[in-house]
């Protein structure tokens, strides 16, 4: 896929219009995982809009988003950065062999109290 | 230019505040358009009664164009919004009756758009000329 096609696909599956962004930075101002991220929520929006998506797809930042929706809740322009991040993540993990979380890696992560939903949601978020 | 060349009759209704002034500006700037276009001045595009349009066709006009202020810029605040609804329905009905849709047109031309006025008229005349004479509205029962 070329740059534009990837951009269009991300916009399509996220349902987000990055052009609405007024670059206020509130998403990054509110993000609890900001310091764990290489690319921050506002950069995801901006870089998707400008088609500079490759670095995002290769960045660990994709897996640092907590899906807490604080950015979605607080964005004054209704841009919903978390949905963009999820769309980029999906674009990445949907590629062949690009699962971030491999099922054989799971057992060693488990402890006896871990609720199922932690595994189920992680599989859903990080794997095809 | 051949004498037999088809010259359409075009009636243009222009609102006094925007489009008529736009036509004047086209004149000031010597932006030519075919003389087939004859302008009737109305206070607002919302003054144009569908009856005027049908009457023009009945009397042999080959095309009718209505020009008004851009939506939101109406001198009377909302006149052109009514025009837009009326003409959307009327033009759709004429199309439904099998009358060539290129013969009717609504265009927003501001007082500053002399060039747009001239260009619009050139295009419209060209489109109507391509259709030829208006037979359908002039005489419905003409037996071919």
């Amino acid at each position: 896929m070329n740059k534009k096609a990837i951009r269009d696909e991300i916009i399509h599956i996220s349902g987000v219009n990055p052009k609405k962004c007024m670059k206020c930075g509130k998403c990054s101002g509110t993000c609890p995982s900001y310091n764990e991220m290489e690319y921050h929520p506002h950069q995801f929006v901006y870089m998707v809009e400008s088609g500079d998506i490759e670095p995002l797809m290769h960045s660990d930042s994709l897996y640092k988003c907590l899906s807490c929706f604080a950015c979605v809740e607080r964005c004054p322009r209704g841009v919903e950065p978390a949905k963009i991040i999820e769309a980029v993540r999906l674009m990445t993990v949907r590629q062949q062999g690009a699962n971030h979380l491999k099922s054989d890696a799971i057992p060693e992560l488990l402890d006896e109290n871990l609720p199922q939903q932690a595994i189920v949601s992680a599989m859903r978020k990080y794997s095809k | 230019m051949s004498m037999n060349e088809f010259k359409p009759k075009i009636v243009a209704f222009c609102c006094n505040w925007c489009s008529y002034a736009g036509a004047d500006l086209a004149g000031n700037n010597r932006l030519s358009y075919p003389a087939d276009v004859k302008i009737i001045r109305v206070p607002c595009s919302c003054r144009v009664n569908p009856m005027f349009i049908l009457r023009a066709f009945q009397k042999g006009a080959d095309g009718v164009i209505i020009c008004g202020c851009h939506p939101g810029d109406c001198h009377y605040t909302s006149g052109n919004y009514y025009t837009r609804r009326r003409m959307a329905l009327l033009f759709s009905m004429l199309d439904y009756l099998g009358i060539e849709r290129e013969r009717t047109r609504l265009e927003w031309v501001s007082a500053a758009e002399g060039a747009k006025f001239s260009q619009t008229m050139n295009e419209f005349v060209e489109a109507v000329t391509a259709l030829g004479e208006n037979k359908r509205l002039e005489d419905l029962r003409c037996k071919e």
Partner: protein
Amino acid sequence: MQRVGVFVCWCGSNIAATVDVKAVAEALKAEPGVVFSTDYQYMCSQAGQDMIKEAIREHQLTGVVICSCSPRMHEATFRKTAESAGINPYMVEIANIREQCSWVHKDIPTGTEKAIILGRAAIAKVSLNAPLTPGESPVTKRALVIGGGIAGIQTALDIADAGFPVDIVEKKPTIGGKMAQIDKTFPTLDCAACILTPKMVDVAQNDKIRIFSYSEVEAVSGFVGNFDVKIKKKARFVDETKCTGCGLCTEKCPQKKVPNDFNLGMDMKRAIYIPFAQAVPKVATIEADYCNMLKNGKCGVCAKVCTAGAIDYKQQDEIIEEKYGAIVVATGFNPISMEKFDEFAYNQSKDVITSLEFERLTNAAGPTAGKLLRPSDGKHPETIVFVQCVGSRCDACNEKGKEYCSKICCMYTAKHAMLTRDKYPDTDVYVFYIDVRTPGKNFDEFYRRAVEEYGVHYIKGMVGKILPEGDKLKVRASDLIENKQINIDADLVVLAAAIEPDKSARPLATMLTASMDTNDFFTEAHPKLRPVESPTAGVFLSGACQGPKDIPETVSQAGAAASKVIGLLAKDKLLGNPCVAGSDEMMCNGCSSCERVCPYGAISYLDKEFRMPDRTTKVRRVAQVNEAVCQGCGACTVACPSGAMDLKGFKNNQILAEVDAICR
């Protein structure tokens, strides 16, 4: 049958170069009704006009067609010419053979042919013209100003200065509005009270101005020059004519727990109060919901201490009816509620305040006597964070905020930041901004001074979340330039809340049939060329009711609105545009279609008795056009299925005649 004279102008060579003017004059001679036709080099010249006048007299012309430049150029000229020759000015029609013919066509045969057709159409129209006389209506030489903030005050003073009586209706107990709550004004930093209160005194002392304070407009009827307005004077339980404003009652009242709205609830007032020392009128008002005497008949202290005998517990609301020639809306603005922006913890911490609250905190007459102290513990804040654009510039789908820029926040925030640093140099001041918008005289210089001279930290980014922890406000924000998230432990956070029109504006607009935009700002008659007039004739706009404005802009608009009002009131009679709609009662069905499309509310209905051919009578509902209000757009004429509604000067049969003449 009309006797029509045709006058074809050469306009030097402007027309004559592409139109054979003689041939046009000759051809038009043959048109029905034409008794005279000629051409001349410059019809608009004195000689040309004299020629027209002479022809009118000599040939007893009843109608005149001038083939010349655009009617937008000289229609008025030729109408005057006709009038001075004794015929009705509206018996003149112009065929535009210059802008719309000679200037856009290249060869003489084409130009001439078209000019003839345009002439014919004008002749066809003028044959159906009827003399028109503009309607006249008297003008009540009194203006009403709704709202007593700086906009209303300035408008009233300017109108009164021209010698016309003005009434101000203010819903609060005193005039002064928002400006009275403000501490200093940007970019000059003069004290708001010092420049406002003298104006308030001017209003009070001006014998042309009456103030209806603690009053609201109840109903408006009538039209430009002739409005009938009902004003409700709310009971304040104090006789204004007797109260001296000594303030003794406000010191003795035992009910001390009344939130003080003038200080935005940051302190308490008594149940009987004078909002602030310079209030106009300086009259006490009782807050009925808190007054023990009014609630349960137990107290009466204020009446006992009042030596003027001004307290009147039995006072009722009063309705005043007055006539006005013009109405000025000056209803102003309010900051929006911060209720829905609790990521900034406005409801969770007393130390998160709005900018208007900050104004009161820094005002010498405010709850802290001008010392900048935190509302929660009265301590001096060492770190202050200002957040810009709270609720402004939101997307349409964001139900919490407004789509527009509130315009004044950048500057007042710079002012607050600068003043804080000036008075308390030990304080760290941060301003989070998206853009700093400073288009105004000396505005950007002012903002730069805040940064360069006063050391205010401007950070491009936005606060995302504020966590009140202990006695600190943990401010989590982004710094977009550094691409960092920063955390500041602040003592005070000031939110630059978006502003919105006062809630009273919407019902008022309905009463005035004045239009509003989706944000409830009043719409102006033309966004560029008629910015202080409402599309509804006789209704004018002053100040922030039309859109966000700072004080200098408000004052200049207030003056502009006043000059429009003065222009109106200076007339004894209003001459209407005679090209107005009129309904043929015999054909009107009373169906209300015309009324619904009229942008001016000019159409009303009357149940009228008609004598039928069989000598019985029948009552029918028929439309009536108020000619003083109608602007002549013609929307109603097309909405009317029976054709009862027609437009003078552009009647159905006139336009049809033009169509016929062109298509012939």
